[in-house]
């Protein structure tokens, strides 16, 4: 069955995605980009250009380059928005039949849907090239506030482009679908969509299999572009103060500054400070001039603060319009590239008192949602086989009371994992397998599921016996743990019925606890690991000396013995630095015995096991 293409037809940029067996996938266009500028142009050579190519000739061909046409689609010429936009856009706009809007490209007067159709046709063609199959149907998204005429015009645009439009989907609903929130029952969702040129807020209510738009709001002339403009204005005026040069007068310098500023803006989403370096940006009588300016996150935030405050006010007003209280809102979704800005995320979080959803790329989330809707319609999104996951990690206790994980949390079941362990002492004939569940580093902090003993191990030096421990969880969450001595073939096992049947709250509590103790647990764990290494090194050193006998000169032996004693005296301390120091001194001293002799020693395997429980060896 042919795929249905999910299309986010945006004011500034468009994106597309399809549903595959493994989930939604955003498709790249023919230029290799995941978003396509919603721009169409007729070049001076009378060639029609769409997307990035149209954008690249905007400066020298502004009259024939049509962008932001979404602002006109399905609108009446007399609408105040049309009259406003008409004044600021560089291309010609006139009144067509029945009070409709027409735009001029070359010698032709086009309806907005014809222009949008050109963008859609490119997306269709690029999707077909990417997939190697024909695309005939699409789900296209529109803002929630679009009226019937705007929806119909968008649908017409699709049909003109040769697409059968299976559904016109609201953008905020698409965002909710992308996060799987349509499966929730009776929830109120706020979608905060801060795009390049528009800001939309929608309040949705999810009922039984329906998503209802309760209110919409925002500002059709507020967006990320305002942020960029503000930053450029600031940088240009600062530079003018410093050097007396007006960058606005030099198009290349301005272009370089724009790119530098955009990069800086992106970097400030993760860094607190960045530097914009543009050597040789200009020159005057005294010679070449360079642009070097630090920009801090705080400065950026202060520059755009007013926009953020305004957007939050608008968002809160929309919630009020929907006749909800802030506390009624269950989920908040962030859409639009600008929402990557930490200050904006913080402001949203503060206003709604909850962490907003932001896992899906905010530039692509609407297209992804459109693909999810397409998937539902082509019947792909069916949960044929629901596979469970283990909510918490499963493992055993090893040397020093450490919890060694065999199966990590969130592993899809059924699954099995095997690992080889060994003994911690010479002639150890039994090992205890202590099966645990949890996220803490130390065994004693986790939940005991079972204990059993494997005995009858043939006497051998520590680290030599090989005990194979196998964890196997079946589809019903029943855990089988077995331990097998590879020498004697002796096996013991235990069956644990309820390894996954913890309540959601309990799992959450345990996870939170682990998070809370993360740092302290890590320290404890490192200390135990260090102690284990110290013990095995002492063991190895003593064994090496004994085995080497007279082959090692007495002075080296004495020196080693001294270091061994030194390490023994500090290995049980709680100061990792002193253990590390003694350990490295001993290691250095040991090298003197000579590599040949060292290699001949049996039983110098890594991390020998403990008593009574086992120690970790190498992975199989």
């Amino acid at each position, binding site marked *: 069955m042919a795929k249905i293409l999910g299309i986010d037809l945006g004011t500034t940029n468009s994106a597309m995605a399809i549903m595959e067996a493994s989930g939604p996938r955003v498709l790249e266009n023919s*230029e290799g980009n995941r978003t396509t500028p919603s721009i169409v142009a007729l070049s*001076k050579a009378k060639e029609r250009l769409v997307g990035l190519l149209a954008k*690249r000739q905007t400066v020298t*061909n502004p009259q024939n380059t049509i962008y932001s046409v979404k602002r006109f689609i399905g609108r009446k010429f007399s609408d105040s928005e049309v009259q406003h936009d008409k004044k600021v856009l560089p291309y010609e706009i006139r009144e067509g039949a029945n009070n409709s809007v027409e735009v001029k490209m070359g010698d032709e007067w086009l309806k907005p849907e014809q222009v949008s159709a050109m963008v859609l046709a490119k997306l269709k063609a690029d999707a077909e090239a990417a997939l190697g199959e024909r695309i005939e149907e699409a789900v296209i998204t529109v803002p929630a506030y679009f009226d019937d005429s705007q929806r119909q015009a968008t649908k017409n645009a699709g049909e003109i482009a040769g697409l059968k439009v299976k559904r016109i989907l609201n953008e905020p609903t698409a965002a909710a679908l992308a996060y799987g929130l349509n499966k929730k029952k009776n929830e109120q969702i706020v979608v905060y969509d801060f795009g390049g040129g528009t800001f939309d807020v929608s309040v949705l209510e999810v009922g039984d299999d329906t998503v209802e738009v309760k209110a919409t709001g925002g500002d059709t002339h507020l967006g990320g572009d305002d942020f960029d403009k503000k930053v450029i204005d600031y940088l240009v005026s600062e530079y003018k103060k410093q050097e007396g040069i007006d960058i606005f007068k030099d198009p290349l310098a301005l*272009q370089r500054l724009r790119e*530098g500023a955009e990069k800086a803006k992106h970097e400030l989403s993760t860094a607190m400070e960045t530097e914009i370096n543009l*050597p*040789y940006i200009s020159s005057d009588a005294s010679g070449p001039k360079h642009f070097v300016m630090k920009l801090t996150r705080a400065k950026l935030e202060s520059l755009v603060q007013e926009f953020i405050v305004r957007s939050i006010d608008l968002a809160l007003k929309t919630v009020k319009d929907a006749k909800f209280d802030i506390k009624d809102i269950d989920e908040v979704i962030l859409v639009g590239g600008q929402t990557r800005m930490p200050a904006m995320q913080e402001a949203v979080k503060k206003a709604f008192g909850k962490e907003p959803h932001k896992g899906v790329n905010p530039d692509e989330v609407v297209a992804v949602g459109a693909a999810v809707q397409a998937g539902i319609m082509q019947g792909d999104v069916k949960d044929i086989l629901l596979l469970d996951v283990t909510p918490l990690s499963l493992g055993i206790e090893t040397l020093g009371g450490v919890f060694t994980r065999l199966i990590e949390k969130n592993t899809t079941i059924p699954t099995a994992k095997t690992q080889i362990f060994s003994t911690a002492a010479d002639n150890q004939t039994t090992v205890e397998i202590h099966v645990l569940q949890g996220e803490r580093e130390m065994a004693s902090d986790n939940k005991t599921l079972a204990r059993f003993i494997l005995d009858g191990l043939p006497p051998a030096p520590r680290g030599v016996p090989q005990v194979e421990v196998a964890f196997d969880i079946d589809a019903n969450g029943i855990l089988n743990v077995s331990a097998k001595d590879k020498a004697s073939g002796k096996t013991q096992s235990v069956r644990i019925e309820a390894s996954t049947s913890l309540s959601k709250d309990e799992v959450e509590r345990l996870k939170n606890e682990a998070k809370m103790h993360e740092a302290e647990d890590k320290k404890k764990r490192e200390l135990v690991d260090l102690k284990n290494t110290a013990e095995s090194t002492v063991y190895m050193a003593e064994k090496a000396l004994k085995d080497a006998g007279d082959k090692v000169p007495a002075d080296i032996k004495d020196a080693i013995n001294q270091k061994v004693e030194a390490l023994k005296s500090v290995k049980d301390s709680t100061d990792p630095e002193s253990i590390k120091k003694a350990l490295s001194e001993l290691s250095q001293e040991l090298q003197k015995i000579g590599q040949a002799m060292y290699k001949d020693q049996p039983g110098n395997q890594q991390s020998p096991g403990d008593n009574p429980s086992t120690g970790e060896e190498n992975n199989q």
Partner: protein
Amino acid sequence: MPDEKQEEKKEEQPAEDLKNELEKLQKDKDEYLNGWKRAKADLINYQKDEAKRFEEIMQYATEAMVRDLIPVLDSFELGIAALEKNGPVDKGVYIIKTQLEEALKKKGLEKIKVSAGDAFDPAKHESIGVVTIEGIESGKIGEVIESGYALNEKVVRPTRVKLSK
């Protein structure tokens, strides 16, 4: 006689049940086997996809690095142009530039070849203004302002040009 018939039926009944049971199990078996095969196929396909994705990520990582270095090349060109105005420039500076370009060439970066008088092609060029130049047809490239680059034949930065008026 009726008793005998009853007896026969009784014997038939379990056979019928077993047959139904067998059919049901057969159906279940097919369903499970299919599900298993499908799961295995999914995994294999996923592994293939993953390998492909890994390759893409590697390429993307190179692209990100190369993109960051393009402004350095720009500054180099601007710097040399500024130095040339004041007289001859030490040869070593040109060698360093070539070195940098060669290193990026190994990663697949090529400078887009273009000169004044060429036709403007938005697939490779970006216009940032107009200029009056004698002898060049209107709409053709009048002046190359900033070099453009293609990485493995994909344009990562178009050549910035001024068009002839």
